[in-house]
């Protein structure tokens, strides 16, 4: 039997090429609007990394993306496509904000309850599509899209009715300091940036998910259901239960992202927006090759793009949407990784042909 080459280096190469293509695509659009891409990227990356405060902001921007990326990747492992991370994140954030605005407790206890609420909200939004998939074989892509818009409208009507802001109808009241993941020591350490406990929580959860996927029976069963559902069933695994569980955990992860976004990075929720972080999470998961560690790095990279684009926009004529454009192009090339794989195969062939030719002559 021929041994397979180790998978990981190939995946990293593919991801790096996708990133490269995204940056090239971004450069083309910068040129097409008459800007210098070198200056653009210089300011983009400086905006994300040039001092300790900006690094803090980059980490804070990346935090929700780590959670949504994990959410999408986790569902992918069970062969499920969670396109509903946006809705799960929104409901998680709404639940956490609702607790944060109504309950008064000492900070650690309050944060703990808010985290539980965020997990519960997101989990519920993942549980429903999971259940529909397990019981009725309803495609999870369509179900999660519907759940996204249900979350959108639930938030749209709940915020103005119960948590209306002081000045604006379209946003919630600001949560108090005790209900925020921001803590003075961290804020000071990063010179007044948005960074908060969310990033520490995210790293913990990355490790936890890595352990679940790679070191537990549950993780093994989830992955088995993803590889071959029928084989897993035949081996006596409760595939339907695992589908529900996988979607519920995916929802919970995105829900935590909502906590990190609305009670960490931000201080309130705006209505009428389906947060982009859920869709970015798909790109994060794909770029990170669905592994928790990969997700962490991919999210940090997207964090740089998102937090640097404002600075770039201030220093050049380039509109900030270039950041999202680059992410979308990366996602497209990650989706069409076949193209990159073919390209790599051709290069490999080229070189191996050359060596065999040499040997022949």
């Amino acid at each position: 039997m021929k041994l397979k080459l180790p998978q990981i280096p190939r995946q990293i190469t593919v991801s790096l090429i996708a990133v490269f293509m995204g940056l090239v695509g971004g450069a083309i659009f910068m040129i097409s609007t008459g800007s210098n891409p070198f200056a653009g990227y210089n300011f983009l990356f400086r905006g994300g990394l040039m001092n300790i405060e900006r690094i803090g902001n980059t980490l804070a921007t990346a935090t929700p993306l780590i959670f949504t990326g994990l959410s999408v990747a986790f569902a992918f492992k069970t062969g499920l496509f969670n396109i509903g991370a946006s809705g799960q994140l929104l409901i998680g954030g709404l639940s956490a904000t609702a607790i944060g605005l109504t309950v008064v407790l000492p900070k650690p206890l309050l944060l703990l309850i808010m985290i539980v609420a965020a997990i519960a909200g997101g989990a519920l939004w993942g549980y429903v599509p999971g259940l529909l998939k397990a019981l009725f074989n309803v495609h999870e892509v369509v179900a999660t899209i519907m759940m996204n818009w249900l979350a959108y409208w639930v938030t749209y009507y709940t915020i103005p009715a119960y948590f209306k802001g002081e000045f604006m109808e379209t946003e919630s009241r600001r949560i108090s300091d005790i209900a925020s993941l921001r803590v003075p020591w961290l804020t000071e350490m990063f010179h007044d940036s948005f960074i908060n406990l969310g990033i520490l929580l995210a790293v913990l959860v990355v490790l936890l998910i890595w352990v679940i996927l790679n070191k537990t029976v549950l993780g093994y069963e989830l992955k088995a259901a993803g590889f071959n559902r029928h084989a897993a069933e035949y081996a006596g695994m409760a595939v339907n239960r695992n589908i529900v569980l996988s979607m519920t955990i995916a929802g919970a992860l995105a829900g935590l992202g909502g906590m990190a976004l609305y009670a960490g990075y931000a201080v309130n929720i705006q209505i009428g927006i389906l947060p982009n972080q859920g869709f970015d999470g798909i790109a994060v998961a794909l770029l990170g090759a669905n592994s928790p560690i990969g997700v962490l790095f991919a999210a940090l990279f997207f964090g740089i793009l998102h937090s640097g684009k404002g600075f770039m926009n201030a220093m050049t004529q380039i509109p900030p949407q270039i950041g999202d454009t680059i992410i979308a192009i990366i996602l497209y090339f990650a989706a069409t990784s076949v193209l990159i794989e073919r390209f790599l195969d051709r290069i490999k062939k080229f070189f191996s042909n050359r060596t065999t030719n040499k040997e022949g002559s």
Partner: protein
Amino acid sequence: MWDFLTFVFPYAITFTIPLLITSLGGLICERSGVVNIGLEGLMIIGSFASALTIFRLYPSLGGSAVWVGLIVAAAAGALFSLLHAFASISLNANQVISGTAINMMAGALTLYFARYITGSGNIHIISGLQRYTIPVLSKIPVIGKLLFTQTYTTTWLVLFLLLASWYLVYKTPFGLRLRASGEHPHAADSAGVNVRLIRYIAVMFSGAFAGLGGAIILVTYSGEFNGSVAGLGFLALAALIFGQWKPLGILGATFFFGFASTIANVSQVVPALDNVPGLILKAFPYVVTLLALILFSKSSQAPRASGEPFEQGKR
């Protein structure tokens, strides 16, 4: 009640039409076996292309710039959808991921260029289409008042396209090949049908129709491009499922959704509806679609090969 209906109906139809045409594009696409989650993005492309065209051409062309805008929107949608076609047909990529990439790219890229062009990211058009009342038909009792007053030309254009698409899908050789590609591509292939070509054409149809849908939103009720179509592309997708992938079905489904949304929008000003929570009316299409998915799960009319890449060697 009658007054209320005659008041609401023109708005409901206005809201239905972009949904209908987009959903129809989705129908042709899925019937060929390609899932297109990117309808939302393609609508945004259409909205942007028409806004830009009208913005630029209005000073020289006047009112007819609107029509040029609609054509450009359809062409732009078709072109942009080639990205999805290439990924999902030629490269056998995951169609959902490719569609998501289309959505993200469309939203970001159009705003990028809009900000470059106008500085604000919004493109306001000076003039859209005007409502008018059809002279003789509007005198017909009941339906005259509901259907033929306060109407737009685009409404009739879209209804014509619906009829034409029905004919195309069910009554022509192309339609037969299209449906065969979506139900059983390998059988179609062995009968000499070029499945990949059919699917390319079908995806471009969805792009053109979704682009048109986005443009119709712009020239009828929104009047301004702002980088979003507020989830209508996804609603069109829901209508496609609720209408069970059939032209008449999606006509019913989109009108149902259009009517519900209109009522939700006007409920604040109509006393009788004041105590119906807006949330219920707004959430209604999505809940109904989920229920429809459950109900039809045993007997779904979804094209059998929808979402599956076509690999010639695999039989």
